[in-house]
């Protein structure tokens, strides 16, 4: 019979000087299973991609689908280029361009372009050579295109094109032909997509201003690509790039102009630039507002049907209202002639079929109602409230959570001196009457700590706020007490103590304490500080 306390320490710790055979065999068997899985994935992938090609014209290698052939072909293409661009070669520039084009086509084909083989075969130095000043535009475009495709792969491969950056950036300038500048912007944008370090590197190599200057032009395709690349660079988290942008004269006006008159695709890219400016750079945001940012923004919000356009526009509006309250006033004013005003636009998004829009819109509302009392009252009187209540009752979890933040913020006075948030009685009792309690109680039960805390804070408000102890009856009736009791044993200290506090305070001090407790233990359960720390930060919306 085994003793439950295992007294052999050897079994507790693996042998430090263990024999290699044991681990190695295990590792080898696992490896064999992984290989099987990879082969299955390859079969499935190949079938899918082959089908995707049915309708696409001009795929060079669709049947039979073989990565191997393409890779070999690619290595050959790189060798050929190496030869053509070596000093001993006397071949014509036309031949060079053809070879470059062939490479570019290879790098554009299939789901799994042979980028790694190309890099390994040493393609980057040749492409850099192709970018040298004085090369024909056609050659520049082809080389930049290949670099673009290389930079769209894994991060290792993206970083492989770093030696080409100075020349790519040089060709962004005004004197370049539009197709050249556009292709270079595209490549630069791909590199920027790689992450913060890559973005910093691009900024330090001076990519920012030439890209920003491209926005001043009136060439939609070029502006679109430049805006996209730019938005990739200014993503943050540092605001430096977003601020520096404004060194370019006339940038604000250009942004507004494209936002107002551009085609939908262009507006999308410009709107993403606006998203990062509004989230990172406050005084530049003011500048944009002054130049007339708000009217086109709310106009799109009120009329567009496109998810890809609404997403950045709504995010920008959300960023604005998260700033100071005057932004909200300005938005209200800009939207006053639109159907339903600003709130009408937001209700449209809240009612959208796209979950991401619902969520962003609820987040936006929660920021508006975290502001002044007047804003809270305005929202309270609008159609936003019934829509939020509907979402809280029926939507998916993440949307419900945002809706709850909004409704919660709507129910309390702006944060004042006092520790405890004060309820706005009219709002609170009406929301409870319209049935918001079950929604919050559901959140209490959620495994998500933040949601659970939010639910608890709202229950606390109801318990404390509603007169004549109404709150405790209502909460119990909606099975909120049961939800609280579950939390009494929650792993999380905050939640547990919040739940205990509420039960003690509103459902009898001795609730849950049995006779058998020793005196010391009862002290522990009841004890604790007078003002639990969780009451701070009630209206803080993360």
């Amino acid at each position, binding site marked *: 019979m085994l003793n439950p306390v295992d007294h052999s320490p050897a079994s507790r710790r693996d042998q430090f000087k263990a024999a290699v055979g044991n681990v190695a065999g295990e590792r080898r068997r696992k490896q064999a299973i992984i290989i099987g899985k990879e082969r299955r994935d390859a079969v499935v992938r190949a079938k899918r991609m082959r089908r995707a090609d049915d309708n696409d014209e001009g795929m060079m290698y669709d049947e039979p689908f073989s990565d191997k052939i393409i890779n070999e072909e690619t290595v050959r293409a790189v060798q050929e280029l190496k030869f053509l661009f070596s000093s001993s070669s006397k071949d014509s520039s036309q031949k060079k361009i053809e070879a470059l084009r062939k490479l570019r086509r290879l790098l554009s084909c299939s789901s799994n372009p042979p980028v790694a083989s190309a890099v390994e075969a040493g393609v980057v130095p040749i492409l850099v050579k192709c970018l040298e000043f004085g090369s024909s535009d056609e050659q520049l475009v082809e080389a930049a295109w290949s670099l673009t495709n290389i930079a769209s792969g894994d991060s290792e491969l993206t970083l492989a094109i770093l030696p080409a950056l100075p020349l790519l950036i040089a060709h962004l300038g005004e004197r370049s032909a539009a197709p050249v500048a556009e292709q270079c912007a595209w490549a630069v944008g791909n590199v920027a997509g790689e992450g913060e370090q890559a973005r910093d590197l691009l900024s330090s190599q001076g990519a920012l201003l030439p890209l920003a200057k491209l926005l001043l032009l009136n060439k939609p395709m070029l502006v679109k690509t430049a805006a996209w690349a730019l938005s990739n660079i200014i993503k943050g988290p540092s605001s430096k790039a977003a601020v520096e942008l404004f060194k370019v004269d006339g940038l604000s006006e250009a942004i507004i102009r494209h936002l107002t008159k551009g085609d939908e695709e262009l507006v999308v890219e410009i709107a993403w630039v606006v998203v990062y400016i509004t989230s990172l750079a406050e005084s530049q945001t003011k500048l944009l507002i002054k130049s007339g940012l708000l009217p086109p923004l709310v106009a799109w919000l009120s009329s567009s049907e496109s*998810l890809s356009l609404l997403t950045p526009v709504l995010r920008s509006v959300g960023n604005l209202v998260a700033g100071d309250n005057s932004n909200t006033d300005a938005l209200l004013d800009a939207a006053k002639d639109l159907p339903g005003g600003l709130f009408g636009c937001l209700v449209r998004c809240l009612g959208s079929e796209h979950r*991401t829009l619902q969520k962003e819109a609820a987040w936006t509302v929660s920021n508006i109602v975290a502001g002044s009392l007047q804003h809270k009252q305005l929202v309270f009187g609008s159609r936003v409230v019934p829509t939020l209540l509907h979402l809280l009752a029926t939507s998916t979890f993440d949307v419900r959570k945002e809706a709850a933040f909004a409704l919660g913020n709507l129910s309390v006075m702006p944060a004042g001196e006092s520790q405890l948030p004060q309820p706005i009685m009219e709002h609170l009792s009406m929301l409870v009457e319209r049935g918001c309690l079950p929604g919050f109680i559901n959140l209490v039960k959620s495994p998500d700590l933040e949601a659970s805390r939010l639910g608890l804070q709202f229950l606390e408000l109801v318990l404390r706020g509603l007169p004549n102890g109404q709150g405790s009856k209502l909460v119990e009736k909606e099975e909120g007490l049961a939800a609280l009791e579950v939390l009494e044993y929650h792993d999380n200290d905050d939640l547990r103590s919040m739940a205990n506090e509420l039960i003690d305070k509103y459902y009898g001090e001795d609730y849950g304490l049995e006779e058998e407790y020793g005196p010391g233990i009862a002290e522990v359960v009841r004890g604790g500080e007078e003002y639990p720390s969780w009451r701070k930060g009630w209206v803080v919306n993360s």
Partner: protein
Amino acid sequence: MALEVTQILLNAQSPDGSVRKQAEESLKQFQEQNAAGFLLSLAHELANNDKPAESRRLAGLVLKNSLDAKDAARKAELAQAWTALNESVKGQIKSALMSTLSSNIIDARHTSSQVIAKVSAIELPQGQWPELIGILLANMSGTGAEHPAHLKQATLETLGYVCEEVSANVLAQDQVNAILTAVVQGMNIAETNNDIRLAATQALYNALGFAHSNFENSMERDYLMRVVCEATQCPDKRVRQAAFECLVSISSTYYEKLAPYMQDVFAITSKAVREDEEPVALQAIEFWSSICDEEIEIQEEYGSDFTGDSEVQYFKFVKQALPALVPLLLETLTKQEEDQDQEDAWNLAMAGGTCLGLVARAVGDDIVPLVVPYVQDNIAKPDWRCREAATYAFGSILEGPSVEQLTPLVNHALAFMLNAMKDENNQVKDTTAWTLGRIFEFLHGPNIEVPVITPNNLPQILAVLLEKISDSPNVAEKVCGALYLLAQGYEDSGSSSPLSPFLQSIIQALLVTTDREDAGDSRLRASAYETLNEIVRCSTEDTAPVIAQLLPVIMQKLNSTLDMQLNSSDDREKQNEVQALLCGVLQVIVQKLGSSEATKHVILQCADQMMAMFLRIFASRNATVHEEAMLAIGALAYVTGSDFSKYMQEFYQYLQMGLQNFEEYQVCSITVGVVGDICRALDEKILPYCDGIMAQLLQNLSSNQLHRSVKPPIFSCFGDIALAIGEQFARYLAMAMPMLQGAAQLSAQAVSQDEEMIEYYNQLRIGILEAYSGIFQGFKNKRPDLMAPYALHILQFLESIYVDTYRDEAVTKAAVGVLGDLADTLGPSASSLLKNSTFYKGFLDTCQQSDDQSLKETADWALATINRLLTT
């Protein structure tokens, strides 16, 4: 109802086999005829002080085995049977058990404690037996006359077992508090009876997991810690050991609460390490190892960027204790045993070295200046203990400190180490070889900028290793380990490896080693073969001919095992071990040579012979051999492609056998994988065997006895089969779809915070999704209509995955693939469904923004497929 069972129970322990067998038979019969009476009789036997101790002990044991089993399904059955018993019978059994706690016979008390815990494990979670804790606690109060010491001892033991059996949420906080109060009283220094103190301390060990809220409160925590620390000073060494075990457990469970006590705990542990008896000293070292584990984990999880308001608390206890802790651990290193080359040896020196290794990982560079002088002082001393300890210390700190710190040291030490391989002492050589392995593991490889191993010293290193591989088995085993890690560092060397010139002689030396008479010692044979595998795996194309020459040698060796003379069970065991290892080598060679067009023919030439041997090997009944042979066959099928069909007729029966092996479920699992390999190799040629395979797979899915980890791969295997046989899969649809739907529902309902379950459900989903993808793709051209009835359900399943916050990346990828496959296969008939279900837009939208390139591509493809469908 109770029957006299004493004699039967005594007979069941008789040395006479036939008497024993008959008694066991009667017990079984009794149990089958009248389960309630049987259990009651056992309980009465256990409780009856007039009965012999032997029959009482066995009665308790049988009773315990009627309540619990290792196997989960059996365990659930037993619990159900107990719950179904008549209330009054259960009541009588329980009161008999409780009364046994006051018996004078220690065995009876002990057995009863365990049985009570097993009953509590069934009843407490269902809210039954609420009075149990109260009754037990009542035993603890009162004077010695009312409640004798041995009752208190047994009660504490019972409380400990109960805490071990039930999970924390089953007991109410008030019960936990009362248990802790009783336990702590029993541990108190005022308790003069050491048996009680021991039982209490062991009970606390089990109850610690319940004490979270008590550890939150500083007064209670202080008190608990004081009592535990006091118990480490008890005159009884059993209590001291148990108290240190409590400290070890506290160090991992309540790390963030330990700061105020660390100074005292350091004093206590260092005194114990230096002065106490070994079992106690080992636990004191274990405390520091455990603190290192915590701090290593914190660093791994949160990296080096700790900010003031970080949620985790990281106290750097190890770093603070370093100046005193390192000398303490170094002292232990010279306390080796003479013969510690035994495989499972564990003593002060080994524990100290292990802890030193963890300290190095926890503090990095800081340890180097504290250890290097010790190494320098001792490494050349005449006493072998000093030399071994110095080498062990050096080897221990090679993981943790930066490469920049270590490289100059290792450059300096390498020649010395190579020389020390010729030391006169076996243990010094053993540890030196291990240290060389650690050098290769941490300071050699493609990521090391300034390599320690250079073309200049490599020949000498290999000369020493290949000479010393013929030393005693323990040293030879460590040499294998070093060669393994050396080869691994040259993985991905391109077309030629620095090892290439030496490959032939390394392989030769390893083969000689596997043939040594004493290769069974120190796991030498297994290590030599696995090292050979790694050498093959990491070899480069310039040495392919050498590997090709190795193939017939290994085949010859395997062949000779088949006709081995077996005179004893030892012989059979050895045959099994060698066959498994050789199959492993073949698997690796087949994979290596089969993956390149240039060398594939080598495998194809030998395929018939290899397959014939594998088939003969299946005659053995050993699980490991089957596993390895299956893996080798899977690798072979990939190389032969559809030609594998010629082996199927003979191989099929073993495939079935593997699929039926529920007991050794790893065999079953690997066989399922091999079915997939074969599907990919044979394509539609697998059809004749599919009826049998599918029938068996379906049966496996419905079985409770099969380990659950095999089920997800079975679903994936459905996908493999469907991909291979296309529309022919239609005939299995009626059986397979309900299984898939059932499993899909199960995985979607799962709201669990248990990480292991979340992981399992994710695996299950991947399996289901891979099945759907395979079936859709298989039906695409000829019978797309067949899947239409299931489309709605599948979409709902996909939506449930979309909204689940716990889904992992692999599930997402598979789900997006199925979404596209569904649209691609069903075509227009899916368009109205897709129009009505909007979730897919959000889903694909999220995926298109992923950083994972292949997820993005799959999402692009799926969206394009759906859009094409909806616009035409």
